[in-house]
């Protein structure tokens, strides 16, 4: 499955190995891991809870992966996103893109992360010394996703 939502942690080596199995035409493996930091928006963060919208999450991630396949020549691509309760330094999300060439694998990896950040229905709630709070979306994430759209001036 090219997209998975799970509470368990993941291992990047095992995921890449499974993705590459039986393929000898892969020249480039680009990957990204999003990790929980212990600090955000001026506060220490001791715990993170990730909520999602089952059904829509998988569908939106699949659409993002499909769109990446349409833009670049990828042999395969994978998204694993965790939900539930996490602690600092925990892995949150993994994206892997396989291609014959590095430019396409790296671009696809950046693209998938940018769209995931603005389109996939996940929400983060942080526990800080001041109490719990929902993470606010960032304008910079909208800007990052916008650069892939036609007509973007950059």
């Amino acid at each position, binding site marked *: 499955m090219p997209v998975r939502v799970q509470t368990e942690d993941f291992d990047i080596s095992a995921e890449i190995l499974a993705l590459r199995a039986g393929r000898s035409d892969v020249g480039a493996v680009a990957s990204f891991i999003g990790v929980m930091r212990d600090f955000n928006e001026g506060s220490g963060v001791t715990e993170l809870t990730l909520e999602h919208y089952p059904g829509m999450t998988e569908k939106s991630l699949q659409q993002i992966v499909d769109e990446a396949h349409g833009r670049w020549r990828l042999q395969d691509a994978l998204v694993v996103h965790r939900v539930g309760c996490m602690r600092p330094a925990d892995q949150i999300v993994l994206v892997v893109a396989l291609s014959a060439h590095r430019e396409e694998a790296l671009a696809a990896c950046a693209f998938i992360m940018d769209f995931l950040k603005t389109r996939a229905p996940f929400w983060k709630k942080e526990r800080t010394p001041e109490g719990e709070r929902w993470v*606010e979306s960032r304008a910079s994430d909208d800007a990052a996703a916008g650069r892939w759209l036609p007509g973007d001036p950059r």
Partner: protein
Amino acid sequence: MIAPMATVDLLYFARLREALGIERERLVLPEGVATTGELRAWLAARGGAWASELDARRQVRMAVNHDLAGAGQRLSDGDEVAVFPPVTGG
């Protein structure tokens, strides 16, 4: 005109779910409510947290049957309509 007695399932997520104190509800679309935008305005008219959370100045996203939807999307009987804040995954 929408079909008489069109029913939708409404789902709320994250901050909205907590602030509104509701996770889901089944709603017979009231007269004059045929699109996502009209539905949002009708829900805001419930007052209290509904008014403040769904105010036109607040960033609210809606999805119909698991696809993000603009304010003009028409609703049909049996639709699953989700209402939530901007996403913050990754």
